[in-house]
């Protein structure tokens, strides 16, 4: 009679107190982007994220760019205090990690998928593509950036089977001149796409969301909000007006979920909870 409905605490299948792991490989992707391979697997799935800790400095969330059961990769931009310090780390250094957190992407095997990436988004999208082709999916992979020198993961993506790579740059230095969402629209017009997946700046995601609506295609998008705990307690990353937490009811959110979220594409909140328009 008196048994718990949820007998196992939800926190048992992840690491919540950071552990120090070695950086075993570093790839400099562009001037300000690096990929670290870490000596750990968290059995993370595409779309999930981890929190990286630099003792005495800070801790920040990063998407998993690959977890192959032995090692885990993150790809990050050096943009502020924390990521600049992280950027300065070398092979052999140890950094703290905990996770994995958040919902993962879920795709239908044997289907045709469109993946659209801006910024660091190419990394987690690559992880998704890698897993999806294993389940016999065909993939249209669209990568966008300011210019040719900022495009990420082109070689890795090109090496995937059953994957068609499309490129868009703002200045036209490579691929389509303009937004990557313009490329997505053409693909949605031309091919029968079962699901759309997106990771990148919010305004890009907002256009992707609108395209999904227009072409009546299911979409899953990676949301970003200021995060603290990563496991649903602090309430920092909640979105108006459903009150859903990006770390728990995201970071991957369906377009259906997002259609109820008023702040999507409009504003986010800083670490004191104050609204900041995009």
């Amino acid at each position: 009679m008196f048994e718990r409905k949820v007998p196992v605490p939800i926190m048992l299948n992840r690491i919540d107190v950071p552990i120090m792991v070695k950086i075993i490989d570093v790839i400099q992707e562009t001037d300000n982007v690096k990929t670290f391979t870490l000596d750990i697997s968290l059995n993370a799935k595409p779309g999930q994220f981890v929190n990286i800790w630099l003792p005495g400095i800070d801790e920040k969330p990063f998407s998993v760019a690959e977890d192959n059961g032995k090692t885990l990769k993150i790809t990050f931009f050096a943009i502020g205090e924390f990521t600049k310090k992280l950027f300065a780390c070398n092979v052999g250094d140890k950094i703290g990690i905990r996770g994995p957190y958040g919902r993962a992407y879920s795709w239908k095997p044997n289907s045709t998928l469109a993946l659209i990436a801006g910024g660091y988004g190419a990394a987690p999208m690559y992880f998704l593509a890698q897993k999806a082709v294993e389940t016999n999916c065909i993939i249209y992979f669209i990568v966008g950036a300011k210019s040719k020198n900022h495009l990420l993961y082109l070689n890795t993506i090109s090496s995937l089977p059953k994957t068609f790579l499309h490129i868009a740059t703002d200045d036209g230095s490579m691929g389509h001149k303009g937004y990557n969402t313009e490329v997505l629209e053409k693909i949605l017009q031309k091919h029968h796409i079962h699901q759309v997946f997106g990771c990148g700046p919010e305004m890009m995601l907002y256009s992707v969301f609108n395209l999904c609506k227009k072409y009546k295609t299911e979409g899953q998008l990676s949301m970003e909000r200021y995060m603290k705990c990563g496991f649903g307690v602090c309430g920092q990353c909640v979105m108006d007006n459903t009150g859903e937490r990006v770390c728990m009811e995201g970071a991957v959110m369906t377009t259906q979920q997002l259609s109820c979220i008023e702040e999507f594409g409009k504003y986010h909140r800083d670490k004191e909870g104050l609204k900041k328009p995009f």
Partner: protein
Amino acid sequence: MADLSVTFAGVHFTNPIVLASGIMGITANSLIHVAHKGKLGGVTTKSIWLTPHQGHKNPVMLGTEHYFINAVGVPDAGIEKAKEELRIYKENKSVPLIANVIASSETDYGMITEAITELEPDLIEVNISCPNIEDEFGKPLACSRVKAAEVTKICKSKTHIPVVIKMSPNVENPVEIAQACEDAGADGLCCFNTFGPGMLIDLESRMPILANKVGGVSGPGIKPLVLKMVNDIYKAVKIPIIGTGGVLTGKDALEMMMCGATLVGVGTMIYYYDIQGFVDMAIEMNDWLDEHNIKNITEIIGALNR
């Protein structure tokens, strides 16, 4: 079906489970979401300051199977943001709202209480016991009988809404402090804030893991300590108690009530069982009461045999 409803300082709650302060309490929509999905009796806002206050860097909280530790540093955007959020909360007509306020001086406690009164929360909870901002403000006011009473008096003089004082467990004489608050006019007590502060270290880097180095301890490990002190206080005061600390299950909540709590504050539980855990708690409480043929949950408040 047993009747789970209770009345606390004149406010009616359909069940005794309330969300504790600082957990998912930053926005109105967050509170509404948890209240609805968790079928809660009531919710408490995160501590609200008069003016914006920055928190600590990350990591701000860490969890293990046995305990939880946090030093968020009570970040808040101040009363103007709170006004907007509380208005949204009121418009949605959700469960009773406990507005938790914090300040750094006795006068400011009066001002924030006055400001929050305009928004008509159902109860005002005065946080004088946060253990993780000691570096900034020194020992919490809740650690002194005289200061706790002074704050209570000032807050009471600024509002017509019932005032609940959030107590610190980190004192030698919790019963005396509780009595001092009661004598000063408090309408209820919230027992307790987090314990400590404590520390968690990383062997490898030889560093405390919380950015603030130390933080308040909550979760399952503190339950026995809270039960004992709640019972001591229950026997010494007449005002009702929100028993808070380490409650994860319906059984835990019933134990807290047997020790004398009228409402049960629950925060860290979310870490273990997420929002669904609240729903399960209420079901368990009801099942236990039915099994023991108790029609009304109020019958078990303070019903500890001795």
